[in-house]
């Protein structure tokens, strides 16, 4: 191919189509991955339900238990009809799927719009054959296609599972379920598009989007707190998702405000884009500030100053997840849960009271969340290097191994803090529902997730020192892969041998299992050795640039 051929525009449709394609290219893969996670989560809920609650009596008992727990609806959404496979599936995945969908959409939208502008690439697009409003609309079309992929993937998996006679989901109801799950990402993509016009940095735009998310979530919680506040569900995207009630009421009307709301947000974003300067924001932001000496004494101090908000958010997320899991412990208290659920839990080798067994397995999710925290820190270290900012430090008397060591110390502190808050948060959640747990035991259960997360940190650090571009993927691969392997090996007896490959195989399921001192010490030692190896290897490769 000649140079002229190589740089010649390909495809048809002009600048708009090119912008939309690029936007889809940036977020399409992520949408596909989330479609798999969404579909698998919902499908797992349905399949677990039909095996754990095989009889009408057990389903009725569950409905009675959850129906009498007033706090559950507030926190976890639509508790109605949990004595049916569809009702339970909707209830089980509601908070998880809508939260992930909304946050993903906000991050994707602000990345495509404000992130590109922060990097100066948006201005290059605007220098071409397009205008801000059209380029914004085209970007949103690309993001819309990614949300469409999320809908198609989730629905396809659910259609496959729903085909089973035990599950028995109809095609129409399944499509409606897919649409209801797509409401949050669709609307919040529009929210991110508007906040990208308001804030002049990606961080601010994302923060505004997440603040809107928080308000919408709280309105939904208030709406679910009693019959007289149910009308509030019509004011929030989470309420629209809930009101569809697929598999039971199958009401398509809430899709109307969702569609209209998204349209209004996208039109508003395009209109605002055409009324502001490139690189600027509608909201005035402070570009001038007095000197704040915090974090300016050393590279570690600066990393702490820049990363503390993110680490705080991770700790908050871990605490929130643990709190929610603590609340659900009520459902599993002895006497109300069916024996089949106990059998499922026993596959994980847990013992003790039902609440302990449940929390032991449920804390696997907390362990996963905390073990993913290092991915953010490894990613930040990589970004610091490839952006050229690390060079300003390396050109001064600082050793690369020591710099990485500081980063690892920060990541390790974040992991310990997240583990430290998770235990008491779960205890608080359980106590709020009247489940009596020992605080000391739950603090230990929270800290128990720390060693495996440190191994994830060490693995990411070694990858950063050897193959930096694969470092973040290495952490995600290790943690998500370990979770899947752990679940598979516990649920399918013929695959139990696989368990040894999982990171979480070396994690005691506290509070249902007592952590073994030898295993904890070994795990921490492995993590320490990996981190030490990473700091030694860090100085042996070339500094990377974009």
């Amino acid at each position, binding site marked *: 191919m000649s140079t002229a051929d190589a740089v010649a525009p390909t495809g048809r449709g002009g600048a708009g189509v090119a912008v939309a394609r690029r936007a889809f290219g940036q977020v399409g893969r992520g949408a596909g991955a989330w479609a798999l996670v969404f579909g698998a989560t919902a499908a797992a809920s349905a399949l677990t339900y039909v095996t754990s609650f095989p009889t009408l009596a057990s389903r009725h008992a569950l409905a009675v238990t959850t129906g009498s727990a007033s706090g559950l609806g507030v926190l976890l959404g639509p508790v109605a009809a949990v004595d049916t496979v569809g009702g339970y599936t909707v209830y089980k995945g509601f908070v998880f799927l809508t939260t992930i969908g909304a946050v993903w959409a906000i991050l994707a939208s602000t990345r495509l719009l404000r992130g590109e502008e*922060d990097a100066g690439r948006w201005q290059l697009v605007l220098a071409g054959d397009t205008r801000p409003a059209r380029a914004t609309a085209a970007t949103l079309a690309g993001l819309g296609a990614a949300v469409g992929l999320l809908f198609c993937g989730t629905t396809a998996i659910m259609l496959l599972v729903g085909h089973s006679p035990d599950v028995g989901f109809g095609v129409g109801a399944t499509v409606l379920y897919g649409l209801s799950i797509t409401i949050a990402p669709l609307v919040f993509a529009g929210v991110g598009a508007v906040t990208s016009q308001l804030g002049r*940095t990606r*961080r601010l735009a994302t923060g505004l989007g997440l603040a809107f998310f928080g308000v919408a979530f709280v309105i939904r919680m208030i709406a679910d707190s009693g019959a007289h506040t149910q009308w509030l569900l019509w004011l929030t995207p989470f309420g629209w998702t809930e009101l569809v009630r697929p598999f039971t009421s199958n009401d398509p009307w809430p899709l109307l405000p969702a569609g209209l709301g998204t349209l209004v947000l996208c039109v508003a974003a395009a209109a605002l884009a055409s009324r502001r300067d490139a690189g600027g924001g509608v909201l005035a932001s*402070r*570009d*001038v*500030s*007095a*000197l*704040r*000496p915090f974090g*300016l*004494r*050393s*590279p570690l101090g*600066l990393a702490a100053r*820049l990363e503390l908000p993110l680490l705080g958010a991770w700790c908050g997320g871990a605490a929130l997840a643990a709190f929610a899991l603590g609340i659900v412990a009520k459902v599993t208290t002895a006497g109300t849960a069916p024996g089949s659920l106990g059998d499922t839990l026993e596959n994980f080798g847990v013992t003790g009271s039902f609440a302990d067994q449940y929390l032991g397995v449920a804390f696997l999710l907390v362990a996963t969340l905390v073990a993913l925290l290092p991915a953010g820190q490894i990613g930040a270290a990589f970004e610091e290097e490839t*952006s*050229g*900012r690390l*060079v*300003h*430090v*390396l*050109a*001064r*008397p*600082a*050793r690369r191994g020591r710099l990485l060591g500081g980063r690892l110390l920060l990541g390790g502190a974040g992991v310990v803090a997240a583990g430290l808050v998770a235990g008491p948060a779960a205890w608080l959640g359980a106590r709020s529902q009247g489940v009596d747990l020992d605080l000391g035991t739950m603090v230990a259960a929270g800290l128990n997730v720390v060693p495996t997360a440190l191994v994830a940190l060490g693995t990411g650090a070694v990858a950063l020192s050897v193959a930096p571009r694969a470092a973040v993927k290495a952490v995600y691969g290790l943690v998500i892969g370990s979770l899947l392997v752990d679940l598979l090996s516990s649920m399918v007896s013929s695959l139990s041998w696989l368990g040894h490959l999982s990171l979480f195989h070396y994690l005691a399921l506290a509070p249902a299992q007592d952590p073994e001192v030898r295993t904890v010490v070994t795990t921490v030692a492995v993590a320490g050795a990996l981190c030490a190896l990473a700091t030694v290897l860090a100085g*042996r*490769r*070339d*500094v990377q640039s974009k």
Partner: protein
Amino acid sequence: MTPTIVTERLTKRYGETTALDTLDLEIEQGEVFGYLGPNGAGKSTTLALLLGLIRPTSGQARIFGLDVWRDAPAVHRRVGYVPSEANLWPSLTGAEALRFLGRVHGSVDGAYRDELVDRFELVPDKKIRAYSHGNRQKVLLIAAFASRADLLLLDEPTSGLDPLMERVFQACIREARDRGQTVLLSSHILSEVDAVCDRVAMLRGGRIIETGRLDVLRGLAALHVRAQLDSSPPDLSGLPGVTNVVVAGRAVECDVAGSVQPLLRALTEAGVVHLTTREPSLEEIFLSHYGGSGG
């Protein structure tokens, strides 16, 4: 006296691509050394090697007699560096970035830093994200000059500065030289190199193709001659060292390298009415080496 920078057959390869090929260089203390070359010639690679940011494929480099890879922190204590891309932390203000860079370096002349902030007309309480490219470069230049480092490694440090700030920069370079500091200045701005550098090296395709004092380079380069004659100009194309002959009526222009005797003899025979000669500018020397090659 030990040279400040010594490289011996310094080579860097990326797979099949040779970014720097057997570089031999010596830069003396107190010298302002211009490092010239088109894009992709290997200038930034050289500076990254000298800072120990990347490892040489073969050869070695020493600064202050220390190995740049093994003894990097000790070398960096005496080095100020300004990279070509001024990426800084967007959420910090200029003053905060200066404070941080000074702390990490460990040596700052605070009074000189404040003076430089005034001379470069930097608004220090503005956030980096609100700075233009030129203002971000000012932050890095101020940090490097204020460190009073023995060696300044500057990689195209003024591409975003306006002409007034360019003059401030050149004044700072002269002050640094007067204090005995050594400067390695990689630049595309030939007038800047012409104004401040004692010696230059020209790089092409990862290899040095010319090194020397500017006046010597000029002497070696072709002299531009313009003559007005009182008869038709003779045929000069066959004379040794004569190139680019242009005839316009009884006027003739050409470049001559080496001895001018044969040219003067031919012109005298044709009757010289008026004769002017001009030494080549650095730009003309640069273009004579790189013109049409693209590096």
